[in-house]
């Protein structure tokens, strides 16, 4: 199929950036969205222009490295990652706009590539269980009810892509943060640090320049791993309890 692409180009963090228009021809419906961009890049190369920078690594929907706003939607029209979006979703002759994640906490590095280190710093603030290597008790020493394990798994499925931030009108990282809090607090091993974790992670979220959550729900709508919106209420309940305990 043949397509018209409107793509955000920005040579570096200081550059103002602008939309540019390109045509691509002969794209296979079987190709992924990123393979389509690979084809465009080979053409740009042939024309002596610089290829478009975009992030990807696994191209299997699991590493969270890819992420582009496609036609105004983070990761595009299907609920999946950009690398798992396939061209059969589009039609011959379509015009597609392609932009980077937009959020103050995610500065643009180049074209469609942004810096998401702020998410790592939220994890550093408490998104872990404090256990040292070696000498852990036998794994069967603490049974975990299957429902809890399954729900923890569901929350742990977050790939840290940042689509939730890009989709949120406040650029809040609440879905990401709540997913981690929910994962860890559901497991007996994670409970002791719960309240401290919630408070510290939320403080870090503010410090990084992410907005606050006003329950809009755009985040869960685009989340490629379908992290349920109710992880946010889990976090809020923990926060309430933390406040009562004066953490």
């Amino acid at each position, binding site marked *: 199929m043949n397509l018209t692409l409107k793509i955000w180009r920005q040579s*570096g963090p200081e550059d103002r950036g602008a939309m540019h228009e390109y045509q691509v021809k002969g*794209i*296979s*419906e*079987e*190709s*992924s969205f*990123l*393979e389509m961009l*690979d*084809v465009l890049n*080979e053409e740009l*190369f042939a024309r*002596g222009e*610089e*290829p478009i*920078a975009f*992030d990807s*690594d*696994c*191209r*299997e929907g*699991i*590493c*969270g*490295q890819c992420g582009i706003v496609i036609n105004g939607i983070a990761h595009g029209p299907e609920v*999946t990652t950009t690398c*798992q979006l*396939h061209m*059969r979703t589009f039609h011959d002759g379509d015009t597609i706009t392609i932009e980077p994640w937009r959020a103050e906490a995610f500065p643009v*590095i*180049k074209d469609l590539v942004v*810096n*998401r*280190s702020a998410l*790592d710093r939220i*994890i*550093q603030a408490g*998104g*872990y*269980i404090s256990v040292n*290597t*070696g000498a*852990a*008790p036998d*794994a*069967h020493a603490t*049974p*975990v*009810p*299957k429902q809890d*394990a399954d729900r*923890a*798994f569901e929350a*742990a*499925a977050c790939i*840290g892509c940042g689509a939730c931030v890009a989709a949120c009108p406040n650029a809040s990282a609440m879905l990401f943060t709540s997913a981690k809090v929910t*994962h860890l607090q559901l*497991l007996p*091993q994670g409970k002791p640090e719960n309240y401290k974790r919630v408070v510290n992670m939320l403080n870090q979220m503010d410090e990084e320049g992410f907005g606050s959550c006003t329950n809009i729900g755009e985040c869960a709508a685009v989340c490629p791993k379908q992290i349920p919106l109710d992880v946010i209420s889990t976090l809020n309940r923990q926060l309430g309890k933390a406040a009562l305990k004066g953490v």
Partner: protein
Amino acid sequence: MSDTLIKGLYREGEKIADTKAPLDVPISQSWEERKFKAALVNPANRRKLRVIIVGTGLAGGAAAASLGEMGYNVEVFFYQDSARRAHSIAAQGGINAAKNYRNDNDSVYRLFYDTVKGGDYRARETNVYRLAEVSANIIDQCVAQGVPFAREYGGLLDNRSFGGVQVSRTFYARGQTGQQLLIGAYQALERQVAAGTVTEHPRHEMVEIIVSDGRARGIVSRDMATGKLETHVADAVVLATGGYGNVFFLSTNAMGCNATAIWRAHRKGAYFGNPCFTQIHPTCIPQHGDQQSKLTLMSESLRNDGRIWVPKKAEDCEKDPREIPEEDRDYYLERIYPSFGNLVPRDIASRQAKNMCDEGRGVGPKIDGVARGVYLDFAEAIGRMGKDAVSAKYGNLFDMYERITGDNPYEVPMRIYPAVHYTMGGLWVDYDLESNVPGLYVAGEANFSDHGANRLGASALMQGLSDGYFVLPNTINDYLAHCFNLPKLDESSPDVVEALQSAQARVDRLMAVNGSRSVDSFHKELGHIMWEYCGMERTEEGLKKAIGMIRELRKEYWQNVRVPGKSIGELNQSLEKAGRVADFMELGELMCIDALHREESCGGHFRAESQTPEGEALRHDDKFLYVAAWEWAGEDQPPVLHKEDLIYNNIELKQRSYK
């Protein structure tokens, strides 16, 4: 070293041996004994010692977290934007451990035995035994970190069985085991970052190693966002940079997986072990066309219930599979290997799929004139267990398949084909995971030691975490304890300057070629040669041809590649790829030389000239019971082969048979 050039391609050097594994005690005590003998570093002194770790996959992430927590001063480098994205994240199937939670007679010895046998007796006994021994601790450690493994209603951990073994020892977290394990290691790592023991360098690629006075003393990295080359010195360096399957261009590896770190180290003296041992995974989604950038693996757990077949008659191949009656289907694995059936190990399943397609009985779209696909059919399983049960077990994989191919596997059988998946070769290391360059340690898929010529399912994750959480933290001390007297190195030391200059010269040289072909076009061509001649089946003639072709291609590369953009001041993804492909070109040649010299079929290495009358792989233990450790002899010089004899004191060598 021999003066004679063997086959016109390489020379033979003196034999080498692993001197660190205690062999005077029973194998079950070797690890305890080694730990006991290893020197310790006083906790107060640890922060004065700096360790560089390259890579944050299971091996590097776990090592960085553990060494940081012990109090060492750790610097960790990785090319992704976050440590959580390392390629380990993609592993779907599971991780083995000898817990015997199923009471099915599993034991450390059995896991050890299965791994050595599965690797076709080309792994080192002591290393594998330790891996099996440590495996049980890995699960404990991960559960303590909050890894949400699958559980049963009683609240205990669930297990499943995995390709090539007859016990249920595989722990899993739906189809996301690698992700969940890596997130555990990543969180442990971030905890150390917060504690100030570990410093992270995201989007930094290691492009050169600093060797001074014969020891590894640091690295040169390139900040990918700014293009700046930086030098970092340390007391020891750990490479945990994963596999090099991307030399084939199309593989199940992530786009950025590369050989640069280990290849640069190889060029500075580190031996490269068994480079040609490549694992081809049987259950991948077949290629769709020439715009393809990578291949996707479907977890091999699918083979527990799916049945593999092709039509008996070539003329049925284009028919709708549902219209082909039972009697016209050839369930070839069940036919040839009645006791293991669809659960034969990967090398066997892969080669038989290729045989069926080469016979003209493959299905699906034709690539270069041959239909390269076989059916993986769940109709019988759906009939037996019901659609809901199948969906509960494999639903996410079915969804993934449908997303990629547009076909619904509940209705139409899936199509699968083998693809390059894992590299058993890597830098040579001893029992301590130290390479022959003192102070250079290598962990995870980047080293060669534990899987022999073929890796059983669910054992790479085990190895990565074993190396990172349990082995390195106990062996590296022995080296570091003797580091206090090393001379100080700073930015202006000659060896540091030399490394920086050579990294700079390489960037400049790539930018200066200014030819007309893109890096990707070279990578694809190299991949084609490798797959054709050094892939699932190799012949002497083909390998010789490939070596010639790679040399030509490499020459053309340095005359005709063009790297657009700038080398400094901004992100340049073409330049990143250009450096990696240049290294793949050299490595590809070494892989072919290694494959050529090994005149036997062994695990993932199938030499057409060496097969049994039934067409099975034929090993030659009399001639090839060794690790091939290759030494770099200089630019355009024939490499030097050092052999490490493999000693089997605990396991009797047998021809593998799955019939």
